[in-house]
């Protein structure tokens, strides 16, 4: 491999990490997706108003089906407090028929969105490995993401969701006091 090749590679690496180095805020890419009933959901409708959890999954992904019941439990527990959860299926068109039976099989109640062309996950997760979970705070910024599922992830997700919901319910002047909670749980806001 020629040296010029490496140099060009490093240049594009630098282009990739510059936004992170200069502290560019972690904005969630906006999107609009269909749900199972044919209706539409636009992220911008909830952004900055609610705490949002996006969980990308597929019917053929076993770790996803290990994670989703926990996320559904979190959804049931905190939905009344303003938590929005969307399980986004990246099953392509040919396996669409398997999505709803999978949901019914596990009695999931959280809303399901369809990303059959992987257009949205591609914007959030470069390698598109799943499951991939994103927590968006009520300030409209990404709080944390999780690539893959490891037992115990759900506890951290719940702690982060609780902290974000607490921020939402507190007056703006005291909202910053919940930040140390994330440090305790290993989470880092960006």
């Amino acid at each position: 491999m020629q040296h010029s090749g490496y140099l060009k590679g490093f240049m594009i690496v630098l282009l990739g990490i510059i936004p992170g180095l200069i502290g560019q805020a972690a904005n969630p890419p906006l999107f609009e997706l269909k749900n199972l009933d044919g209706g539409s959901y636009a992220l911008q409708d909830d952004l900055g108003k609610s705490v949002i959890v996006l969980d990308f999954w597929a019917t053929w992904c076993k770790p996803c089906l290990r994670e989703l019941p926990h996320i559904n439990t979190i959804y049931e527990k905190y939905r009344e407090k303003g938590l929005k959860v969307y399980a986004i299926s990246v099953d392509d068109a040919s396996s669409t028929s398997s999505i709803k039976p999978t949901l019914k099989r596990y009695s999931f109640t959280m809303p399901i969105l369809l990303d059959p062309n992987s257009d949205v996950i591609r914007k959030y997760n470069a390698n598109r490995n799943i499951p991939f979970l994103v927590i968006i705070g009520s300030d409209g910024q990404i709080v944390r993401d999780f690539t893959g599922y490891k037992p115990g992830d759900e506890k951290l997700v719940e702690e982060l969701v609780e902290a974000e919901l607490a921020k939402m319910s507190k007056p703006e002047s005291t909202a910053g006091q919940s930040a140390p909670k994330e440090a305790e749980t290993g989470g880092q806001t960006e």
Partner: protein
Amino acid sequence: MTFQRFLCIVFSLALLSAPTLAGTLFDDFKLSGTFESQYWNHDPNDWTDGEDPVYEGPYTSWENILGLNLDWRSYFAEVRLRSMQYTDPIHYDPRSREHETDFELFKFAAGYRGEWLKVTGGDFYKSYGRGLVLFVQEDKELNLDRSIRGGSVDLTTRWIDFNIFGGDIRWHLFKDLLSSMTIEDFNIKDRAVGARAVGHLPFNMNLGASYVAVKQYEIIRDKYEDEDLALGSVDFQIAGLFDGMLDLYTEYAELKWDSEEPFGEDLDDGKALYSSITLYAGPVTILGEYKDYDFWASRYSRPPTADRDDEIAETDDIRGPRIRVDYFLASTDTLFYVSGSRFDNHAHETSFGSVFRNRIDHLYGGIEQKWDNLYAHVTYGYKKYVTLDEIHRRITSDIEYTIVGNHSINLYYEYKFTGNPGAEKDEHKSYLTYSISPFLSVTAHYSKHIIQQTGKNRTEDEWIAGEISTTPIPALTLMVVYGKLPPGLICSGGQCRIAPEFEGIQASLSYRF
């Protein structure tokens, strides 16, 4: 410096400086992005024994993809820049002309996204219905990325959804020897236009119609030839009939060539039917599917396989039913399921003048059980190609145990047997993962393939690999794999990915900002 490279650099710098400049002007200006870097050193020990050393020889590649997304009110723009360095010092494929690209404008798109109108110009993926008449996507298993470069318009109203698109279909292979091949290298210069309308009727009913026209170009005897292919379909769906107990979907499609022997091949016009019915009765879910695909030979189609979810089945000429029943016992957190199918084909006369009939019987089932700290999933599958007298058996077991707190182990084992009058093949696949949520997972992979052909020596192939995946800080994932891995779906370390066959070292970095 080429004009395209200059344009890429200017565009990238403009995008990166845009937030600062625009932040003061527009509060709702949002920039986000992803960055992925992958280093692969593929060095198979036995590559000289391969049937095609051009495709199986060693290579080193380093690929970086920077994705930038820009949102301002209802407008959006996205760009994917790619650099690719690549070496194949011993053998190189003369069809692959470029082994190094820098700041390549790999994909781009821009447009408007409103409440009822979406307009996109640039690169996009597209599928219609259940993928019968149109499926232009990335397919990691086939190591193929196909997208449309052109324009697409979507209208969404209360009563009708409408889409129209047109453009050139671009083909890319990625992450292997032919990574830098372009559309010219494939000798494919296809162009497609299409439209789809879906009417929303009362009682959760939808009626859809799709039409796609493809102009396929290929080099035949050193000159370009083209064929026109037209595909059309109608589909009907009812969701939640009888108080949410029943869903129905059916789609019928036809495919027509403009000549009797497209590209000199003996291809007839095709027909395809796919139907599914799902019944939800308390703890029981029943999914029934029926497919009938005949001469369904479009490049841009991927109909439902009506088969095991993770297998790609025959889709050109096949027909038959499949039924799957699930029973969930909530009191013990146990799921039982069983699936059975019987397929055959239309037994057309082959190009050799013979009639070939095939029948496939397929049965599989499983039990999934959850306890407090333990999860177990076992499956058994049996498939018989009756005419070929070939049998497939598959047993899997997946056990996950939470040791304490956020520490857990996962043990997966899979056994596959394939037997026909000419050969028998045993495949063992296993991995053991130790995970510490959410930071680290360490996996050891071991697979073994044993092939015994009639009248020949027994051959064995071992696949051993180690893998470390870590998330040291949120938004950043690092992964290193060393060893030899078989191709296909790999679900380890708590995540699934689809990858080609590999031997050597891989390192990857994935970052979101």
